[in-house]
Each structure stands twice: as structure tokens, then as C-alpha cells.
């Protein structure tokens, strides 16, 4: 991971044609930025934690609600990073579609009381250990000097993203469309009544 | 089309043809298989007759490039070593197709695989391209496993299939690694053996590399030929295999490993050969003596034949290990003679199994009364197996013994003991238990195959054995020049080395003996 980070940060970023490499047009004042970032970051992590381990309720609906909160905070962070279009998409797709889908399933099929039985010790130990490893590595990777200056504003508007998508990433774009189609057909097939 | 391609293509094309015929046209399928193998055999006889002994270079050569960047191509040709092997392989394949009458179920699939085996191994014998050499052999080897698994017999069938598959795949894998190593170390950017030989004559492969490459090839090819102590797949596999498969594998496919030693390992890696030849000699003697001893104790005819085939391979290894013209010539003669003999043996035991319902020798007895034809052939086959003059085996074994005498007298004495005495013990015991003595009542209905046509396959193999036994010159005139070339490559090296350093030979021999002891 350290390697990866270093690789990304040290690579010179010159000459990527469509991008403006100047200081931003949309400039959030540098004094407010840390505050906003802190709010969203804390919100993200706390809500995320409550999705996983809510001390009060084990109901999946509660989890879903906190997931919405997490997603919204991440969208806020996107805005901070200048990715406006993505933030919008994030809110629309997740908060709008995905969570609704979750809620439908929970409502129709009942997500209640399925958390019986104890987790195995083996899973606890091994899983906990690997998590600890991840966190340690993460910490190790991030304590070093990072790059704090924004190289240039990348305007994540719909237009620039769209141009990029249908020019440079056309193949990925088309494949994505194909995948979505396959997902649609697949879920329809799986959801059929006589599917035994 | 050139004759060698016909030899390879006839069975393969027939396999394709049979594959598209509906499975219930059994007669048609049989006729196609017989005609294809007969065509191969006829062309093989013709090229054998037309082959000009002692002429330099390959004869009936055909080559075309396939993958230019890697130097892979289709390159077939005849030299003195493979001309006899191809003749033997084609005849045994024909005989195997003849005796496959016994197969009753999944006839179509059986013949497709049998024809693939036949075409594959003939291709391997004829190929002068290492890639084709290996590829064709795999083409023949894989059907063997399937056929033992599907049409095999006996309770041990599944275990036998596993064992033979694992062993031979392992051996083939070692060979593959070795061949690739040869390709890489040689640096000639070609898989063509003729060019490799030429290249190595100019710039030999570094001696250090040869020292680890040779054992790879020796043990890899050795496993394929049931070199002791990697032999135990042979008796189990042959006891379980259907008749045609046992004939083809024991008789023909097994010889691929020896051909590989002659073609690749010895000429391309002379330095490695010198280091490792003592080990091969010791193991060859192990094959002979140990195979013979174990064969003495078998109560199942097929297992006995399996072990005797292990023992016979000892002569071939010993001949190669001698590195003399006599020994190498003898080894090739042994390969060819044993091909006919193993084909005959397994054909006969398959017949006995069909009519008597068993291959347990103590459950047969006095059968000579009922099956004079098969019995007489079995006696002949057994006598040929213990090296009686008049059969081709005798010539080969004699040459090997004479050739190896200079190399190591102890080996030869032990080998002669194993061949003359131990061999006679188990073969005569088999004849005594199966054919002699009073007839067992439950075998009263057993009879010979009716009609000349049904006897022809067996007779063909005996005639071949006798022909090459009485007129060995037919084979030897063809083999000798190339055997001389093989042994010459290494002999010149020995002289050069003798001028240089004697110490390392001694060290090598000591190291090799150490390895031999550990084996």
C-alpha cells in the first residue's frame, strides 16, 4: 500500500490534455475546509460504524438508515473534492435506488431476528487479526508525509466526465452498459416465481 | 503424399472418420479401423524394404514450418533406429486392431481411441522435431489412461488407472521439462533434432547444465519405460488394460522412452550421460534381476507378463548404458523384438482370458490339449522371452551382453543370469501351469480361434519374431550406422576427456554410485 501511495504521489501529472492545471474556480475557503472535512469524515465513520454494530437495534432497517447517512456524508466529501457530478450520482443511486431496494426486500421478506447463534471463535480471531493487520498497515502508510497540495482543480462536472467517458473510456463505458443489462436480466430471472 | 505422412495420418484420419459414424455400425467401424492400420502397416513394410541401409542423413524426409519464431515444425524422416520401430509399431497396431474383436460395449469410442494411440505413437517414432515427438507421444498416452479406466478389467482397475496415469504423467512432465531445458540451453532456437545435433556438435551445451539435465531426461524417459524402481505401474496397468491397449502400450508406446534416450539424451548431453551412465547400468540390472525375481512369484499371467516386460527393458537400458556400437544396436533390436513379443504375449493372454475366463494361472491347466494353436504360440512366446535362439530377442540380448561386457563385467554376468536362468524359471513355470498337466474339467469347452483369418494376427507377430531372429541382418544393417553415430558422439568425448582429466570421471562415478545406492 505504501508503495502504491508513493507511486501515485510521485508521478508527475503534467500534460493530461483536457484538464486545467490551475488553482480552482470553485474555491472553498481554506479556513472552512478542514472543519467541513472533519464534520463529514466523523459523520461518515460514525454512521458507518452504526450500520455494522448498532448497540441499540439490530434491525436491518436501522442499518439501512445509517447507510443512507454514510452515503450522504461520502457525497459531501465528494463535493469537497470537487466531484460534483459524482456526488449527485452517489446520492441518486445509493440513497434513491439502492436503499429503497433494500427496504423493499426487508419489508417483504422480513429481516427480523435472523441474527441468532454465535459467531465462531475461529472467525472472530482470524477476522479480527486480519482487520488489525489492515489497520496497522493503513496507519503505517498514512503517517508518512503526504501530498497536501491540490495539484490543480479537476472539475468533476457532467460535461467533462461525459467527454472523458465517451472518448477515452468508451470501451469500459460500453462494457458497463452490457453489465447493467446482464444484471437486469439476471435479477429478473432470479426473481421469477417458478424458479426452482 | 509422402509415405511417412500416410503412416501417421491413416490411423488418425480413420479415428476422425469413425468418430462421425453412428455407434451402431459396428462392422463398418471395425473394417475402417482394420483397413487404416493395415494401410499403415503396408506402407511401413514398404519403407522398411526401400530403406537404404547406411545412407547418410534421413530418408523419406518431409518437413514444413509451423511456428517459425519458436522453431517448431512438422519434420518426419527415417533413420536406421526408427525404421524398424515404425515397422514394429504398425504391425502391432494392426494386430491390436484385429484382437479388439473382444470389445463389446462402446465400440466406436474404443476404436477412436485405439486409432489415436496408433497414429500418435507412429508419429512420435517418425518425428524429428522435439515438439512433435512429445506431442504425438501424449496423443498416444492419454487414450491409454482412458481406455484402461473404461474398458479395463479386474477389481484393481480404478487403482491401476490412477497409478498408470500419475506415473506416466509424472514421467512425461519430467521429459517435458528436460526437453524445454535442452531447447533453452542449446540456444539454437529450434526444436528440430537434426539441427540440434548439428548445433551441439559445434557448440556443446555447458557441462554443468548437462549434469542436471541428463538425469531429468533419464528418469523422465525411464519412468515411461518402467525403469526400476519406477516400474510398478507396468504390471498393475497391464493386468487391468484391455488386450489391445496392453499390446500397444507394452509393445509400442513404451519404446518411446528408449527412443528419447537415443535421440535426445545421449547425443545432445554426452557430458551428462557420462556422469549418469553408471546409475543407469545399475538400475538396468535392477530391472533385469528384480523384475525376473518378482515375476517368478506371480500367479496372474498378465502380471507375470508385466514383470517380464519390466525385466526385458533392463536389456535395452543395459545396451544403452554400455555406450558401445554393439550395445546400442542390441538395445534397438531388443526394443523391436520386445515390441513384437509383448504384443504377442498380451494378445495370447487376452485370448486365454476370453475363453478360460481368468488369467489366474493356477485356475488354468492342461490347456495345450484344447488350444494347440494358441498353446504352441504361447510356448514360442515364452521361449522367445527367455532368450532362445531363433527369435529376435536372442539376437538383441546377445548383442547387449557382448556390448556391455567391456563397460562392466558384473552387470553382464548378473544380466546373463537374470536372462538365462531367472527368465527361464518364470516362463517355464507359466507354461507348466497353464498348458501342461491334466486338463481341468471346467475348461473342457475351451477352443482355438476358428479360421485362418482370426489366427492371422497372432501368426503375424510370431512370424516377425522368427524372421528377425533368423535373419537379424535385416535389422542390424539398418541400425548399425546410426548406433555407431550415437555411441561415437560419446566415445569421442571420452577420449578427449581421458586426455584432460581422469579424476572427475572417478568422482562422477563415485557420486553416481552414491545415487545408485540411495535409489
Amino acid at each position, binding site marked *: 500500500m505504501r508503495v502504491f501511495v508513493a507511486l501515485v504521489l510521485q508521478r508527475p501529472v503534467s500534460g493530461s490534455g483536457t484538464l486545467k492545471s490551475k488553482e480552482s474556480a470553485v474555491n472553498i475557503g481554506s479556513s472552512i475546509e478542514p472543519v467541513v472535512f472533519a464534520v463529514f469524515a466523523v459523520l461518515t465513520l460514525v454512521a458507518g460504524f452504526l450500520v455494522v*454494530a448498532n448497540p441499540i437495534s439490530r434491525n436491518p432497517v436501522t442499518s439501512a438508515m445509517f447507510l443512507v447517512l454514510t452515503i450522504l456524508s461520502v457525497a459531501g466529501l465528494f463535493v469537497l473534492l470537487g466531484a460534483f457530478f459524482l456526488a449527485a450520482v452517489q446520492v441518486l443511486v445509493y440513497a434513491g435506488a439502492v436503499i429503497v431496494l433494500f427496504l423493499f426486500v426487508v419489508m417483504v421478506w422480513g429481516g427480523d431476528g435472523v441474527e441468532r447463534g454465535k459467531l465462531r471463535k475461529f472467525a472472530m480471531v482470524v477476522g479480527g487479526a486480519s482487520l488489525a493487520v489492515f489497520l496497522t498497515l493503513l496507519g503505517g502508510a498514512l503517517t508518512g508525509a503526504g501530498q497536501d497540495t491540490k495539484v490543480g482543480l479537476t472539475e468533476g462536472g457532467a460535461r467533462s466526465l461525459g467527454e472523458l467517458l465517451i472518448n477515452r473510456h468508451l470501451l469500459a463505458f460500453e462494457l458497463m452498459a452490457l453489465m447493467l443489462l446482464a444484471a437486469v436480466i439476471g435479477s429478473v430471472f432470479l426473481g421469477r416465481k417458478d424458479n426452482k | 503424399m509422402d509415405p511417412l505422412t500416410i503412416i501417421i495420418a491413416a490411423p488418425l484420419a480413420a479415428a476422425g472418420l469413425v468418430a462421425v459414424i453412428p455407434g451402431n455400425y459396428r462392422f463398418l467401424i471395425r473394417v475402417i479401423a482394420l483397413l487404416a492400420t493395415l494401410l499403415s502397416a503396408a506402407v511401413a513394410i514398404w519403407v522398411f524394404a526401400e530403406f537404404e541401409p547406411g545412407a547418410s542423413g534421413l530418408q523419406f524426409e518431409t518437413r514444413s514450418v509451423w511456428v517459425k519464431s519458436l522453431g517448431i515444425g512438422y519434420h518426419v524422416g527415417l533413420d536406421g533406429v526408427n525404421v524398424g520401430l515404425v515397422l514394429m509399431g504398425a504391425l502391432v497396431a494392426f494386430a491390436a486392431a484385429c484382437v479388439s474383436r473382444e470389445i463389446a460395449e462402446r465400440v466406436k469410442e474404443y476404436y477412436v481411441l485405439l486409432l489415436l494411440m496408433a497414429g500418435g505413437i507412429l508419429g512420435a517414432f517418425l518425428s524429428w522435431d522435439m515438439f512433435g515427438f512429445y506431442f504425438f507421444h501424449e496423443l498416444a498416452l492419454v487414450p491409454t489412461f482412458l481406455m484402461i479406466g473404461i474398458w479395463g478389467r479386474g477389481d484393481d482397475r480404478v487403482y491401476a488407472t490412477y497409478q498408470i496415469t500419475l506415473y506416466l504423467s509424472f514421467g512425461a512432465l519430467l521429459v517435458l521439462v528436460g526437453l524445454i531445458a535442452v531447447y533453452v540451453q542449446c540456444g539454437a532456437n529450434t526444436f528440430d533434432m537434426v539441427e540440434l545435433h548439428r548445433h551441439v556438435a559445434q557448440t556443446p551445451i555447458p557441462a554443468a547444465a548437462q549434469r542436471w539435465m541428463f538425469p531429468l531426461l533419464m528418469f523422465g524417459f525411464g519412468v515411461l519405460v518402467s525403469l526400476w524402481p519406477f516400474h510398478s505401474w507396468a504390471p498393475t496397468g497391464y493386468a487391468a488394460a484391455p488386450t489391445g491397449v496392453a499390446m500397444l502400450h507394452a509393445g509400442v508406446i513404451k519404446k518411446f522412452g528408449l527412443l528419447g534416450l537415443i535421440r535426445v539424451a545421449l547425443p545432445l548431453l554426452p557430458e551428462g550421460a557420462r556422469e549418469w551412465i553408471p546409475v543407469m547400468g545399475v538400475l538396468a540390472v535392477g530391472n533385469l534381476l528384480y523384475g525376473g525375481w518378482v515375476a517368478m512369484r506371480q500367479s496372474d499371467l498378465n502380471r507375470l507378463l508385466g514383470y517380464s516386460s519390466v525385466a526385458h527393458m533392463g536389456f535395452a537400458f543395459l545396451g544403452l548404458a554400455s555406450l558401445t556400437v554393439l550395445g546400442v544396436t542390441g538395445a534397438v533390436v531388443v526394443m523391436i523384438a520386445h515390441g513384437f513379443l509383448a504384443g504377442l504375449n498380451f494378445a495370447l493372454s487376452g485370448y486365454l482370458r476370453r475363453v478360460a475366463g481368468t488369467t489366474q494361472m493356477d485356475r488354468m491347466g492342461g490347456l495345450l490339449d484344447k488350444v494347440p494353436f494358441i498353446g504352441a504360440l504361447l510356448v514360442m512366446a515364452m521361449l522367445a522371452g527367455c532368450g532362445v535362439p531363433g527369435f529376435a530377442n536372442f539376437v538383441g540380448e546377445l548383442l547387449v551382453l557382448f556390448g556391455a561386457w567391456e563397460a562392466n563385467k558384473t552387470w553382464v554376468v548378473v544380466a546373463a543370469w537374470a536372462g538365462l536362468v531367472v527368465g527361464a524359471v518364470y516362463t517355464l513355470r507359466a507354461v507348466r501351469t497353464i498348458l501342461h498337466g491334466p486338463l481341468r474339467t471346467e475348461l473342457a469347452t475351451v477352443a482355438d480361434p476358428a479360421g485362418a483369418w482370426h489366427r492371422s494376427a497372432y501368426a503375424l507377430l510370431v512370424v516377425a519374431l522368427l524372421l528377425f531372429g533368423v535373419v537379424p541382418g535385416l535389422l542390424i544393417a539398418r541400425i548399425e550406422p546410426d548406433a555407431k553415430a550415437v555411441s561415437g558422439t560419446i566415445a569421442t568425448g571420452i577420449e578427449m576427456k581421458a586426455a584432460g582429466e581422469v579424476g572427475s570421471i572417478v568422482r562422477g562415478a563415485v557420486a553416481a554410485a552414491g545415487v545408485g545406492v540411495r535409489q
Partner: protein
Amino acid sequence: MTVGLNHYLAVSGLLFCIGLAGVLFRRNLLVVYMCIEMMLAAASLALVAFSRFRGDLDGQVLALLVISVAAAEVAVGLALIVAVCRRGLKPTADELAGMKL
């Protein structure tokens, strides 16, 4: 104090670990799915942050693709859960043990 790349990455990493913990320790399949979504969001966050600090938009495109994948995945996954429930099974990780050898 300025907010640097590392801060975003820290948030992203922590969110990822929280999601992972959920995947590993929760047994309601629905919640597991939510946690997977969370992990994907964390990944998108990292991508966007890199994009910002590198100064090109490729990261954002990738994040966009990730979001579509997440959507498709949720559709298929939820359909699967529905199918599981139709068979009279509870949608928990413990009940789906068909991968046992």
C-alpha cells in the same frame, strides 16, 4: 491546517475496514450487502481523492463505474436473497452452506 490526501485516504481506509468487519461478523445477508456497499463507497472515495490530488479525471470515471457495478451487484444480490427466501430459508450466512465439499 490543510486537508491533504492522507486525510481522505484515512477516512476511506477506516470506512473500508468498518465495512469489512461488517461483512466478516454480521450474519444477516442484507446487512452484509449494505456493508459491501459501504466498502465500495470507501473505494470510490479513495479514487476520487486520488483524482483530485493527481489532477485528472480518470479516478472519477473509475468511481462512476464502481457505482454502476455496485448498483448492478445490489440488484442481482437482492434477487438472490429473494430466491433464497422463496425456498423457505432464512437469509443468513449460516444457512447457505452449499459450498461444503
